[in-house]
């Protein structure tokens, strides 16, 4: 027995190692210096020094989403912890597994307004899946193990461990990861078999089925994507994906009808509206998807697979709820389908596809690149085409460019698309790209960015330089907060209040000052060369692409409208005024 006692900080590092951690993103300060000592004394875990703690959390999110592992963050007390709050909230909204270690003042000073003290567990309680304040060094190892278990199990999310300085300096016992955490917290994995049988029956009888899948498929892992693929093929149903689900089903497949929702395709949204059986797989009926709730897919039977019971019947009442892991439930559905061999109404399905093809024929994503002004859609399309054949990961900032990336860059594989969906955090993409590149050193990582968002975490260019990360920042520069400008144009009488940015930096020089290459395209004829040059450079690049400043994102379902009241283009707006109820929505 009598094992050698270890210092708290060493216990933490040891527990991280046992959890398989190889990288952590962090920023030091007084309260965490003992932990930085412990990091200094070992080689198994690499610490990536960011330039602001918010960047650390987004980097960990990119790392986690692109690998399926838990992303790990280390920040100091007080301002270090508060700077992490946006990232934690982002991870909570998008179900990203994160463990964030925060320093804290010593236990005897807690509550005294001590230097750099803040109530970290209080502040982060509503923006984490769970949090801990460790008061006894002998609890440290068990808490770290439990935190990883909670972060990655069930619906993944961020977990904070607040570490008072005296606790990480005290001597205590290490405890190996056992089964305690799993006994304490064990979300349901396997779905209810009778509900699954009912789902198979409904799908088998459907005349106008649709499969609507989301981020939960990505959370469940690549096996779930494979099973989704099998089920779509078996049923012959069209498949649509949410913004968070892109890549869960191959965009290049003919049964894929595109993204759905506010900026989704005409065919996806109308198919959702008109279907008779909807299978929702790991998606949460977000308001960006449903539009006006009372007009959402009024005639359909709805089946919903979700690991989190609180996602079910939250916004939209469903007929067949199935609580469980996407991978496990899909495997059961596929197995039951194969056994039951349902007699489908082939004629009805054919008619359904005929209808879908008519909607497709509207070509809602068509655009025209003529003249020298670069259309953003064209820029994304060319980026997509010129990056084929390379292992490419795309992150985005938030705004119009994000939607164009979702619409015009096609994803065939899961875990290659990282975007801030639920919180919509500008400044996510650059640090997230950094995290992805750390996890995939040899891959191509591109942040599709807006000029306004890029400035929100531009300091991370310095991290990118320090670790020689060949991240490419592809800025669709419209000199506007484009998405804000678009709403002002469509909903606020063209009053472009504070959405224009004066005195933007020269992004080429900015890149150079951060030891990166800076490129610029201002004419359509320059675009391909700039993209090719960007891809050829073996280091970080900022490519500043001057795009059409007036371009808007279409299709668009204005807030408060129903799916079949979609705006397809700029000429559509006049005859469809936006309701007052719609105006108050975001």
């Amino acid at each position: 027995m009598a094992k050698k006692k270890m210092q708290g900080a060493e216990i933490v590092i040891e527990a991280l190692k046992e959890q398989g951690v190889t990288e952590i993103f962090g920023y030091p300060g007084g309260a965490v210096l003992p932990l930085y000592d412990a990091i200094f004394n070992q080689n198994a875990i690499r610490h990536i020094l960011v330039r602001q703690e918010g960047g650390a959390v987004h980097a960990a999110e990119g790392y986690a989403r692109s690998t399926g592992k838990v992303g790990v963050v280390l920040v100091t007390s007080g301002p270090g912890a508060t700077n992490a709050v946006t990232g934690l909230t982002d991870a909570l909204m998008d179900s990203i597994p994160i463990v964030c270690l925060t320093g804290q003042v010593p236990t005897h000073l807690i509550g005294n307004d001590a230097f750099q003290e803040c109530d970290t567990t209080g502040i982060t309680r509503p923006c984490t899946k769970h949090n801990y304040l460790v008061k006894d060094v002998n609890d440290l190892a068990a808490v770290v193990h439990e935190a990883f278990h909670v972060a990655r199990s069930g619906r993944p999310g961020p977990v904070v461990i607040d570490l008072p300085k005296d606790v990480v300096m005290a001597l205590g016992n290490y405890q190996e990861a056992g089964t305690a955490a799993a006994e304490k917290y064990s979300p349901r994995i396997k779905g209810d078999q009778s509900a699954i049988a009912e789902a198979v029956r409904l799908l088998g009888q459907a005349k106008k089925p649709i499969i609507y899948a989301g981020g939960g498929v990505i959370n469940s892992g690549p096996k779930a994507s494979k099973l989704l693929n099998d089920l779509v093929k078996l049923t012959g149903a069209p498949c649509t994906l949410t913004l968070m689900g892109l890549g869960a089903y191959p965009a290049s497949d003919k049964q894929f009808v595109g993204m759905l929702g506010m900026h989704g395709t005409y065919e996806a949204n109308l198919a959702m509206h008109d279907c008779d059986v909807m299978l929702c797989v790991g998606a949460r009926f977000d308001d960006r998807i449903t539009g006006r709730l009372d007009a959402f897919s009024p005639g359909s039977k709805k089946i919903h697979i979700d690991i989190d019971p609180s996602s079910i019947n939250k916004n939209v009442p469903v007929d067949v709820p199935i609580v469980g892991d996407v991978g496990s439930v899909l495997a059961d559905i596929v197995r039951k389908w194969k056994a039951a061999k349902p007699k489908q109404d082939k004629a009805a399905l054919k008619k359904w596809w005929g209808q879908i093809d008519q909607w497709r024929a509207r070509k809602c994503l068509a655009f025209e690149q003529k003249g020298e002004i670069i259309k953003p859609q064209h820029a994304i399309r060319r980026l997509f085409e010129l990056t084929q054949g390379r292992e490419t990961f795309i992150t985005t900032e938030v705004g119009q460019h994000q939607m164009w990336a979702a619409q015009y860059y096609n994803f065939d594989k899961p875990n290659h698309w990282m975007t801030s969906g639920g919180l919509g955090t500008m400044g996510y993409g650059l640090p997230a790209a950094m995290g992805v590149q750390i996890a995939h050193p040899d891959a191509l990582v591109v942040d599709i960015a807006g000029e306004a968002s890029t400035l929100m975490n531009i300091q991370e260019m310095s991290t990118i330089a320090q670790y020689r990360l060949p991240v490419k920042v592809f800025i669709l520069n419209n000199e506007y907060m484009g998405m804000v400008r678009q709403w002002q144009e469509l909903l606020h009488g063209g009053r472009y209040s504070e959405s224009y940015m004066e005195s933007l930096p020269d992004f080429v020089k900015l890149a150079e000052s951060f030891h990166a290459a800076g490129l610029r395209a201002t004419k359509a004829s320059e675009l391909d060369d700039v993209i090719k040059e960007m891809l050829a450079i073996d280091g970080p690049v900022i490519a500043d692409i001057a795009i059409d400043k007036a371009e808007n994102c279409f299709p668009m379902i204005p807030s408060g409208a129903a799916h079949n009241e979609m705006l397809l283009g700029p000429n559509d707006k006049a005859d469809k005024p936006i309701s007052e109820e719609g105006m108050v929505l975001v």
Partner: protein
Amino acid sequence: MSEPSKEVNRHTIAVLVDNEPGVLARVIGLFSGRGYNIESLTVAETDHAAGLSRITIVTTGTPMIIEQIKAQLGRLVPVHKVRDLTLDGPYVERELALVKVVGKGEKRVESLRIADTFRARAVDSSNNSFVFEIVGAASKIDAFIELMQPLGLTEVSRTGAAAISRGNKAI
């Protein structure tokens, strides 16, 4: 799926939680953060050996909101069990109140008479005041307080509901 019911009902929910710091803040924060009602909330440790506390929450909402409340409570890590006593069958609900009534003469006599019919006990008295202890359903306590109003009611302290299912089944 047919239109869900919009009828607002009162539900008594029992929640078994780990007795650890922050757990009450988590539950209360959930209600305030998501805009749910709390009519009353009672909490105390109920199993010292297992380190468990029981929270009894009385809330109101449509069936969809009540379902959300239970699902949201259920996904908190320190929460072990969530039971909707109102839905799960017959249950007993009790609340205790201490009611201070100040007065003299006929009013004082009348307050005692009413207390007697409500089986409230005087747990403190001075020559011009009583403190009554009354136990019962919230509605009974409401009625008692109302009757005491004209008789010199000056102060009320209520515990909120404690509730448990009837019969031999445990939570």
